[in-house]
């Protein structure tokens, strides 16, 4: 097995397969420690109005190691137009960077936080045309994932379960279909609750994971980030190692001949 197990997204190479969010931490120092513990090379960020009354507050970017890739998201957007508008601003916020990587997220409603496939696809087409490297958060629908890939997205990011739910991978059969057909990296975004969820997804062969709440909301975010780094690596290695087929009945692991007294 080759020791080099990098993957690329829009021409950029990553060695860590765990992408982490920067939201909902109790403070910036904890966030920074958790990011470092996770080993992530890419972190998501949101775009919001600057609070004109709170000038001089420490900025988020001060706490994110400079060498990491920023992945701006469109959290809070409920239409394609809002998402495109937000990412045009994100592109202006990032100095340099051709074909910037962006996480497209267009939600359908505030209760489920489930993605709106129709609006997501519409926004994806527009953003690809404008030169963005689009990573769309989407439902675990193989047909939609195929359409997003055909629209020129650089990856597809189906959910494991609703955002922040911590329910883990709810539909491994849908994810398997998505993996079987995808020619772009598949990243499971949303739903991870604990480290074993990372391993389960990685063992199926997904290219990566995107996790926020399960780390930032853990009692000890830094320890959970470490656990998820290890689980992601373990799951990836197990996938590459090639697991044994599942069988209903037992299969002896010691020789069945030469048994004493027989």
């Amino acid at each position, binding site marked *: 097995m080759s020791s080099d197990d990098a993957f690329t997204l829009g021409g950029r190479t990553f060695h860590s397969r765990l992408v982490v*969010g*920067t*939201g*909902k*931490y109790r403070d910036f120092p904890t*966030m920074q420690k958790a990011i470092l513990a996770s080993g992530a090379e890419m972190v*998501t*960020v*949101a*775009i*919001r*109005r*600057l609070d*004109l009354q709170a*000038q001089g507050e420490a*900025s*988020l*970017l001060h706490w994110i190691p400079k060498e990491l890739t*920023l992945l*701006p*998201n469109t*959290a809070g957007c409920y239409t394609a137009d809002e998402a495109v*508008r937000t990412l*045009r*601003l*994100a*592109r*202006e*916020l990032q*100095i340099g960077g051709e074909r910037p990587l962006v996480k497209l997220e267009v939600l359908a409603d505030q209760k489920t936080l489930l993605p709106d496939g129709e609006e997501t696809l519409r926004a994806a087409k527009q953003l690809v045309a404008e030169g963005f490297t689009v990573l769309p958060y989407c439902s675990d629908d193989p047909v939609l994932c195929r359409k997003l890939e055909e629209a020129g997205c650089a990856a597809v990011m189906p959910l494991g379960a609703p*955002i922040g739910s911590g329910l883990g991978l709810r539909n491994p059969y849908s994810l398997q279909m998505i993996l079987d057909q995808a020619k772009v990296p598949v990243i499971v975004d949303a739903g991870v609750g604990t480290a074993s969820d990372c391993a389960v997804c990685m063992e199926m062969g997904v290219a990566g994971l*995107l996790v*926020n*709440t399960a780390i930032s909301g853990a009692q000890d975010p830094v320890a959970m980030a470490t656990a998820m780094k290890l689980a992601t690596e373990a799951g990836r290695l197990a996938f590459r190692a090639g697991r044994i087929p599942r069988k209903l009945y037992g299969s002896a692991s010691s020789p069945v001949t030469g048994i004493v007294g027989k």
Partner: protein
Amino acid sequence: MRATVNGDSLELPDGLSVADLLRHLGVRAERVAVERNGAVVKRARHPEERIAAGDVLEIVTFVGGG
């Protein structure tokens, strides 16, 4: 003149450029992106893009998110 900045109606000096506005508000330009009436104002154009009465401006930055 009055213009709307991040949802608030503000009284601003006439003839302000986007760069002037950011200085007026005490905002460091490298930390923000600016949209004027729905269109991004590129950083290089901040000094020349003039704000008119009734404009709607958005000044945004990165915050934590997933």
